[in-house]
Every structure is written in structure tokens, then in C-alpha cells.
């Protein structure tokens, strides 16, 4: 790299951080605060919306990981399927609500099939083998979507119209509110299910110690299968709800899964609350980075987060430090 380009690189880095500092400075400058505030709010809204999707993907990850120690790289495909199936059913003339319901059902079935055909037969495999299996599943689902659907972007009609709501100088789409509210609802329902029902207790038992759970009569295969099914359903719902905002296509799953995993790392692997926090935080980081630093490096944020967490605090923000007994 010659002096000129090196200089340019340093220059751009400096101006990026200057830009950020500038923005923060403007926020505290009373006279120009309103515009900067509006901008800040705007980024917050988009960050929260996309963060809600990451949170749902992360929760799905965590559910499966806790029950089976498998990191499911195909998690993002569930979101993709939810959106794509709904879209194409809609094109075929099926009314929206029914299309969405069917899409969630189909995705749930896919999740169950993934467990039964892909994971359960390889129950004694090493971690790396499992990773390759779920990556293979992800690529397979993507490949099938490529064939059955097409390679274009598709959208769905928003639930409450697409007129943005003005809040504090910024605007938020009604669909975003729907996404946020639904994410909250889903997480609460899931918590209620896990804590209050017998089935949920069985999930906790299976997550804590599979052998012991089997010994007290829990059919762990059914439980783990159910966890896959529930994760798939959650992902599908997220997909249906967010498509009006972010659009969908056959290959959105890959990046989503990786970002969901980043969220899980951020919150601490195995911790459901952490997954939600991680997802929302990641969404916010991304939005702020895209807004204040560089839009084209938006996707890099998740990976920088992954690497930073792995090196600095492998247990995540909320997770417990696991002590390795030698």
C-alpha cells in the first residue's frame, strides 16, 4: 500500500470517528439538538425493529441449544421460509392470514423434519460434525427455496398500512411496532410456557441433564423435537412479520443465522434473557454503525461483535462464567 492510499485510509477512519463525535456533540448542542435527536431516534427505531428479529432468531437458537447442545445454523432459514412461503401462497390466491398460518405450520414441520432426519440420526457426533450437518441443512433449504421460489426480493402487505407514525421528529412504521410488540409477546409466551407448564418443565429438565430426564420418564426425543418445532415456528412468525419492512428472498437466512448467533454470543450462550438482550443490542449497534459510521459495513458489525465477545468475554454479557473442571 503506497503512502497515498494509506493516508486516505487513516483519513477516512479519523473522519468516521470525527463524524461520530460530531453527532454526539450536536446532540448536546441545544440549538441543533432537535435534528440530531430526530436522527438518533430514527436509528433507534430501525435498530430496535431489526433487533427484535435478531432477538427472536437468538431465542430460537437458545431453545435448541439448551435442549440438544446443537448450534442450529439453519435457524435463519426458518425466518426465510416463513416469509417466502406466505408470499408465494399469496401469489397463488390464498388470503393473507391463512397463508401466514400455513407458512408457519409448514416451517414448523420443516423444523421437526430437520431434527428427525438430520440431527437425531447423528446423536453421537462431535460438535464440529453437528455444525457441518446444520450448515448442510441450511444450504439445502436455501437450495430448495431457490428452486421452488425464485431469486428475487418479495414483500408482503403491512398489517396496518405503511404510513409512518411521527414520533419526536423521527418516523416509525406501524409494522415496526407490530414486530416489536409481537417479539415481546412471543418471548413472554415462551417464558410462561417454560415456567408454568408441565411440558415446559420437561424442557428444563432435558436441557439440564438429558440422561437424568430420560431416567425420570421424559421422552427426550419428543421434547427436543418439540423445541426444534417451536424454534421453527418462532422464526417463521418473525419472518412473516418483518417481510413488509425488510423484504425477503431465498438467501436472507444465512446472514440472519449468523447475526442471531452473534446475538447469542453477546448475551451469553444458553441464556434466553441474554439472547433477547443480545439481539436488541446487536440491532442497535448495527443501526448506529450504519447511520454514523458507514452504511456499507453494516453487516460487518455482527462479526466484529462475535470476535470481540469471543476474545474479551466468552461468557457474554449476561451468561455465567463456566468453570472448566479439568
Amino acid at each position, binding site marked *: 500500500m503506497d503512502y497515498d492510499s494509506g493516508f486516505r485510509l487513516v483519513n477516512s477512519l479519523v473522519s468516521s470517528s470525527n463524524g461520530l463525535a460530531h453527532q454526539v456533540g450536536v446532540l448536546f448542542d441545544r440549538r441543533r439538538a432537535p435534528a440530531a435527536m430526530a436522527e438518533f431516534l430514527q436509528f433507534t427505531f430501525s435498530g430496535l425493529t431489526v433487533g427484535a428479529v435478531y432477538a427472536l432468531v437468538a431465542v430460537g437458537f437458545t431453545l435448541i441449544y439448551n435442549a440438544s447442545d446443537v448450534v442450529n445454523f439453519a435457524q435463519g432459514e426458518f425466518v426465510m421460509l416463513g416469509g417466502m412461503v406466505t408470499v408465494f401462497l399469496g401469489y397463488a390466491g390464498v388470503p393473507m392470514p391463512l397463508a401466514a398460518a400455513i407458512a408457519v405450520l409448514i416451517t414448523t414441520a420443516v423444523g421437526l423434519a430437520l431434527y428427525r432426519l438430520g440431527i437425531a440420526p447423528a446423536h453421537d457426533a462431535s*460438535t*464440529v460434525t453437528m455444525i*457441518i450437518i446444520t450448515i*448442510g441443512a441450511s444450504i439445502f433449504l436455501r*437450495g430448495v427455496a431457490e428452486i421452488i421460489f425464485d431469486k428475487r426480493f418479495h414483500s408482503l402487505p403491512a398489517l396496518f398500512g405503511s404510513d409512518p407514525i411521527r414520533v419526536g421528529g423521527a418516523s416509525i412504521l406501524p409494522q415496526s411496532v407490530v414486530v416489536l410488540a409481537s417479539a415481546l409477546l412471543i418471548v413472554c409466551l415462551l417464558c410462561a410456557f417454560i415456567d408454568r407448564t408441565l411440558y415446559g418443565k420437561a424442557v428444563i429438565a432435558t436441557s439440564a441433564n438429558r440422561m437424568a430426564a430420560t431416567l425420570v420418564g421424559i421422552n427426550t426425543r419428543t421434547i427436543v423435537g418439540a423445541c426444534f418445532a417451536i424454534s421453527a415456528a418462532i422464526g417463521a412468525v418473525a419472518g412473516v412479520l418483518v417481510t413488509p419492512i425488510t423484504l425477503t428472498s431465498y438467501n436472507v437466512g444465512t446472514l440472519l443465522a449468523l447475526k442471531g448467533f452473534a446475538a447469542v454470543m453477546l448475551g451469553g450462550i444458553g441464556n434466553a434473557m441474554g439472547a433477547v438482550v443480545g439481539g436488541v443490542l446487536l440491532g442497535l449497534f448495527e443501526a448506529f454503525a450504519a447511520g454514523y459510521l458507514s452504511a456499507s459495513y453494516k453487516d460487518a458489525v455482527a*462479526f466484529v461483535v462475535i470476535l470481540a465477545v469471543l476474545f474479551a468475554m466468552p461468557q457474554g454479557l449476561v451468561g455465567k462464567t463456566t468453570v472448566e473442571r479439568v
Partner: protein
Amino acid sequence: MLAEADRFRLLQHHRLFPLIPLAVIIVVLPLLFPSAYYYRVAALVFIFAIAALGLNLLMGFAGQVSLGHAGFMGVGAYAVAIGPSRLGIAPLLAFALGAACSAVLAFVVGRPILRLKGHYLAVATLGFGVLLTIVFTNEAKWTGGPDGMPVQQIIIINWTVHRIGTWYWILAASFLLSAVIALNLIDSPTGRALRAIHDSERAARVLGIEVAQKKLAVFVISAVYASVAGSFFALINGYVTPDASSFLRSIELVAMVVLGGMGSIVGSVVGSAVLVILPQALTVFHEYEHAILGLTLMAVMIFLRRGIVPSLSAALGGTYK
């Protein structure tokens, strides 16, 4: 005076023995090629075999995992593209610099990354590979952005390499050389240390093996292999795009390694051959490529975990290299 049978048995145990059938095939194959197209397919097989070989050293022998190895292929590919056109460096020098950059990058990134294990290591390497792809896609001034950039043909002294037939022999020789180096490594103190690390890091440490250092060494070596393969790939295509370092490409490399057989040198070629030739042969089914790749990965990992070559070899009652 050794009897013929004894001589053969001794030869069989020589570390380079597996290369003999390979070398024979390489020499005989062109006689069967009806057209230039076949040379090109073979050249691609060699290129990916080199990358798969490097990854096999890391995954099959040392027991680590990398889901971002195509990133190093990208570094090598863009080096031979950027060097001559943007920096005015001779193509051969750019080739070497690409490998050097990959080595340095692997050294710097490897130290912290290799402390991780299991899915943490997998995701860290994955993140690394994707980050590189994002950089290649965004820095359009250097890399031509998402559409990529053309690659000058390589000039060795003043001979421009452009015939695909010439590439066949260059790549065959390069592949054999990289196989020799890999086989050398395996049958050496370092190689034994790496194989020990695969089975029990704790026991290896207790026996005096500097585990972190060895893991880093094999990571760097495999990065250089990938970089060389990437450079060749760019040169032979005359073009490079950010896809050279994509996640999908990294997974294809992993697929080659596991399909052919982790820990098998010959397996690297077999895996590469299958994954290069099949899509070419089934151009009718081009759309099904990804679905088949995914299905293959799953099936191999569930049913044929050791890979083709080791399974075949075990079925025939022998050991394999």
C-alpha cells in the same frame, strides 16, 4: 538381498507412496482429453485440491476447524489482481506477496482464534471469512467492488502463460509439490505432534508439545495453501470477484475435506474432484447445485463420517494415507 515382495512392502510404507498412483493418473489423463474444456476442469480440480489439502492438514490431522478458509483464497486471488494493476508489481511477485500476506494474516488472527474450541472456533473462523468478503466487496477502489476486477495473465520472465494445456501441467506440478510437503509434514515430529493434539490436547501438553505454537503453525501453513490456490484460481479465470472468499466457498472446501476423508491426502483430491466435476457434469441440474451440496454434507456427516477414501480403504482391508 530383498525379495520382490519385501521390496514392495518397504516401498508401500514410504511416506510418498500414495503419490505414485496420482502421478500416473496425472500423466495419462491428458491422453484421454477430447478437448481443451477437460484440461480446464482438471486444472480446477488441482486448484481446489491444493486448498482442500491445506484445510485437511488443519481439520483432518490437527483436529481444528475453519469455516472461513476461503478468506485466504480471496487474499491470494486479489493479490494477483491488485498487485500488477494497482501497484505495478510483477505478477509472480504478487503471487508470492499474496501468500506472504495470508501467512501474516493467519499468524495475527490465529493466535487469539485458536484458543477457542468447538463451535466457538467454527463461528470465529466463519466471521473472519465473512469480514474479508465484506471488505473485498466494499473497497471498490482497490477491488472493483461486488463486480470484481480483471486479472492480468502471469508472466514468468518473458513467457506469458495463457494456454490451458500449460496450466494443466503447472497446476499438476504445484499440486504434487504441495502433496509432497503435506506428506513430509505428517511423517515428521511436527506431524506426530499435530495428530496427537487432535486426539488429546491435554496429553500432548503434558508430553512437552507446545500446543498453541503447533496449532498456529498448521493454521498458517493451511492459509498459505489456500492463498496459493486462490491466486491460481484468479489467474486461470482472468477475473476475481468477492465470491472467491465467500462463506459458501468456505463450506465447499469443508465439504471437499469431509467427503474425501479427513486425514487422507488422496481424499483431498477425491473430494475436490467430486465437487468440481459433478456440477460441471450435471449442468442440466445447475439449479440444484446448492440443494445437492447441502444434502451431500448432511448425508456424509451422518452416514459416511470418515469420508470416501478412508471408508473404501477400510472396506478393502488396508490402511490409507
